[in-house]
């Protein structure tokens, strides 16, 4: 059983120190693609937190109680990707029926994250680092919080930059990438935290 202290360390290190986007480059596509406005970025972040936390829990349970007992750990990639894809579908259907308010808020983002590589990445990292189910869920939650933090910050910066006079070739994506690079430098500062 993991102690509270270990869980706290996982929480900080996954959300800030080794930020999923800025130092591990997972989930880069939505990070660049859905960061035009703070509102949409926050919505995307919320959906990612929801899905990754759920997916890391489900993947952890399946790994522990199905893959390990049958000695088929090597099938983890196939099993995880299918579980995640199916899970997002079910979540979408469930939310649409049961919690329409939440579906209104997150619904449009769910399809975008079905195979966001961060979801699969977290599930695989949990196995690689031999986290238990609880630690895995905490890790998933922390990773997703890290994603949300960085995408909201980037969206804020992009809103500010929108009307700036950027040199021709750097308009659009290059400027966003440069901003992301500067954010990555800033996040390097967290590495002294642990």
């Amino acid at each position, binding site marked *: 059983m993991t102690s509270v202290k270990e869980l706290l360390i996982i929480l900080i290190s996954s959300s800030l120190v080794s930020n999923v986007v*800025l*130092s*591990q*480059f*997972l*989930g*880069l*596509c*939505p990070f*660049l*693609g*859905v960061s*035009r406005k703070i509102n*949409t970025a926050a919505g995307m972040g919320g959906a990612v937190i929801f899905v990754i936390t759920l997916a890391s829990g489900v993947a952890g349970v399946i790994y522990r109680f199905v893959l390990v007992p049958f000695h088929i750990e*090597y*099938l*983890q*990639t*196939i099993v995880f*990707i*299918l579980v995640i*894809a*199916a899970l*997002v*579908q079910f979540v979408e259907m469930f939310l649409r029926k049961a919690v329409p308010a939440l579906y209104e808020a997150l*619904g*449009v983002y769910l*399809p*975008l*994250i*079905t*195979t*966001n*590589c961060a979801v*699969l*990445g977290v599930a*695989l*990292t949990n196995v*690689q680092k031999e986290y238990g189910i609880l630690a895995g869920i905490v890790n998933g939650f922390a990773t997703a919080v890290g994603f949300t933090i960085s995408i909201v910050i980037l969206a804020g910066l992009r809103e500010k930059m929108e009307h700036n006079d950027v040199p*021709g*070739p*750097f*308009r*659009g*994506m*290059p*400027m966003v*990438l*440069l901003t*992301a*690079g*500067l954010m*990555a*430098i800033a996040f*390097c500062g967290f590495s002294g935290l642990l």
Partner: protein
Amino acid sequence: MNKAGERLWNGLVKENPTFVLMLGMCPTLAVTTSAVNGLGMGMTTLVVLALSNLMISAMRKIIPNSVRIPAFIVIIASFVTIVQLLLEAYLDSLNDALGVYIPLIVVNCIILGRAESYAYSNPPIPSLFDGIGMGLGFTVALTCIGGVRELLGAGELFGRRVMPESFTPIGIFVLAPGAFFVLAGLSALQNVAKAAGAKKGKDVSKIGSGCSEDCLNCGQKGCSRRLVEFGAQDPEKASAQTLGETDAKSSGKAEPQTVRGTDIRSLGKVDSNILEKADQSDVQEIPDIQILDWTSTAKEKKK
């Protein structure tokens, strides 16, 4: 044989997945800390891409249209697992260096994109060469980016010192921020090329048409970010993967979305007639105007 050569050239130069289409950016940024890592990742992806293209193409008549995406994923994931086990057995150092990014090849946009846009509608041999060509293009690109980062960040190339002693390595280029800076430079070069090409009247719609745009308005098929069609939806609907479609209780709501997405993506390719047609038609018509640049090859073949 001519066909095979054409596919190789297409993947290496004309539709280079990294330099032209900007696809699969996650592995591109993550593993290119050195030229060797880039080469290793590229070769691994090449093997998976070629084999999965071959397999999907060979099975294209058996796989029902409505479940093709899950089928593709299972095939791709199987090959990734095989390659991962082989790497663990024979190239352990590379496996350690690439870590979690090997299994993550499964969600690489390039592989699923090629399966969807080429292998599923073409015979096995051209598909195999299409996979090899795309894989080679990816490998060359990753090796170049890795080389640049290694050269600037450590003064070395493939682990050998090439810069003069007086050169102080700019360490940040092998760290995470450097990846963003190098990609920003690459993306700026693309913009320059695009502007120059447009001036000469060339078709530049392919440049940068990959995963670097606004997701919410994107109608791209086969992008791994939008595998919504996991359930048994009907094929027409499945290919109309716009966000509008997701909550398309009213088709009226879906249309502006799609037209907007098309506007952004391939302005040059859509003439006003088609847009008008889309305005009058229902959601079922949307796939027709959603043919995006890198999927156009397959559509042409079908005709």
